[in-house]
């Protein structure tokens, strides 16, 4: 395992050096910088779209799927490496230039290197790695999420006001859904004269969710999908080039 990890580290160092070299070459050639990536993007995009029009029984379908799946995973892995390099260099810069709150960057890098060290040394079964995950990472993330409840309470108190007809509708729907999501709500609802015995608040909340919210969700889903298709075409045809970087 240790030997394998050693090879892995050497491999990544060689890889980064190669990436820097390729990067320098790309900077100087207009063809490599613009035309070739655009051609690649168009070619790959058309192939992926084409796959959706081939029946899955056709051998060509499997060929394209195999190829695309593997390449997407390889490229994603490289993106992860680039992300890690960016994280480390950015935080090193923050520390060396003593930017505001640079101390947090020290904690971040310390956490990053310690976790990576134990992860590479012992794998996912190591005691230290387990300890970091179970007793540091899990409580910290859960705490961050839990704190939201307090801010939501404070924000609801300040902002959830019936200032207009629309706001009143929103407020009413929110109160009904909040009541319907908990059993205590149903218990309290049953004490309301007349309507309490007619129907349960959880049914009313479900109805709001199933009819109004789902209608809205479906509209968003369709709209976003159409927008996604339009944006994809713009990228494939080279109209949208922001992914090349700021110089474009």
């Amino acid at each position, binding site marked *: 395992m240790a030997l394998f990890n050693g090879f892995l580290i050497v491999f990544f160092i060689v890889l980064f050096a190669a990436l820097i070299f390729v990067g320098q070459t790309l900077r100087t050639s207009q063809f490599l910088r613009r035309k070739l990536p655009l051609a690649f993007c168009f070619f790959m995009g058309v192939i992926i779209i084409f796959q959706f029009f081939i029946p899955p029984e056709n051998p060509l379908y499997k060929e394209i799927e195999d190829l695309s799946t593997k390449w997407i995973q390889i490229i994603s892995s490289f993106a992860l490496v680039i992300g890690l390099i960016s994280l480390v260099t950015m935080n090193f810069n923050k520390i060396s230039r003593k930017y505001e709150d640079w101390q947090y960057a020290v904690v971040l890098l310390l956490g990053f290197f310690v976790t990576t060290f134990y992860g590479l040394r012992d794998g996912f079964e190591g005691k230290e790695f387990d300890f970091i995950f179970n007793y540091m990472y899990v409580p910290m993330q*859960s705490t961050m999420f839990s704190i939201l409840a307090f801010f939501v309470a404070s924000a609801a108190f300040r902002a959830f006001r019936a200032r207009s007809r629309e706001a009143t509708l929103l407020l009413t729907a929110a109160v009904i859904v909040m009541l319907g999501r908990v059993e205590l709500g149903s218990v309290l609802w049953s004490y309301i004269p007349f309507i309490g015995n007619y129907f349960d608040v959880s049914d009313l909340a479900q109805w709001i969710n199933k009819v109004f919210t789902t209608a809205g969700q479906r509209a968003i889903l369709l709209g976003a999908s159409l927008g996604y298709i339009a944006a994809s075409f713009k990228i494939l045809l080279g109209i949208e080039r922001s992914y090349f970087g700021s110089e474009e």
Partner: protein
Amino acid sequence: MKAFFTIINNLDRRIIFLAMVVAVIWPLVTPLALPVQITPNTQSSYDVIEKLNPGDRIILSFDYDPASSPELQPMAKAVMTHCYRKDVKMIAVALWPQGPMMAKKAFESLAGEAEFSGKKYGVDFVNLGVQPSYVAVVKGMGDSIPGVFPTDFFGSKTTDFAIMKGIKNYRDVAAIFSLTTGSAGIGTYVTIANAQYKTTVTGGCTAISSLEYYPYLQSKQLSGLVEGLKGASEYERLVKKPGLATAGMDVQAVVHMMLIFFILLANLSQAIAGKQK
């Protein structure tokens, strides 16, 4: 009266925080033991597993991280309890980087219980880990599951496990159960595994994201949905094993009531103070 509502209007948020602390701690110290009603969505999700035969294999996808664990970890344990009791084999995969660790925690937690002490890794369950690019992963599993996950989370060859014998792709699994917190998860399985490969997809998610999946429920592409902590508590009731979700629902009930109280109080104070102006 005006003075009182002016104070309410300018209430220090620390008082609200303090009230929230009380609302959280009180039900944990004194459980309310509220009844749990089973919603149709949770029942449908439960039925998917209930209808499986002993020896059937399902994909249990851990698509969340520790931030969502208060809602989804009890849900995962309830679903795993159900699978263990039905002798349904679980192939755990993940679309989120932290997912395999969440799966590991859940399996380890159940392994400590006497009822499931006989369950073996590689025979009754396996943790295949995570692979980058969730769309490619879900699509790739339609062709070959061992191809996408050549080794398990701990580095052993996937095809060596008894549970993986005869497993090639989605056609060899009875269903997919995704525990989802974000974009990668139920939506991806519905649009690829169900729409393209006709695999039964069900799952559970955080309460906040549940409405995102209602269109899929109505189109029957998603067979049931366990929604948030409430859904998890319902599932715990269905498997007759109350746990953290059932305890957490007492807290959620009191916190919801407190929120409603604060909202009504704020609106009342604004209305009255406004009138007096």
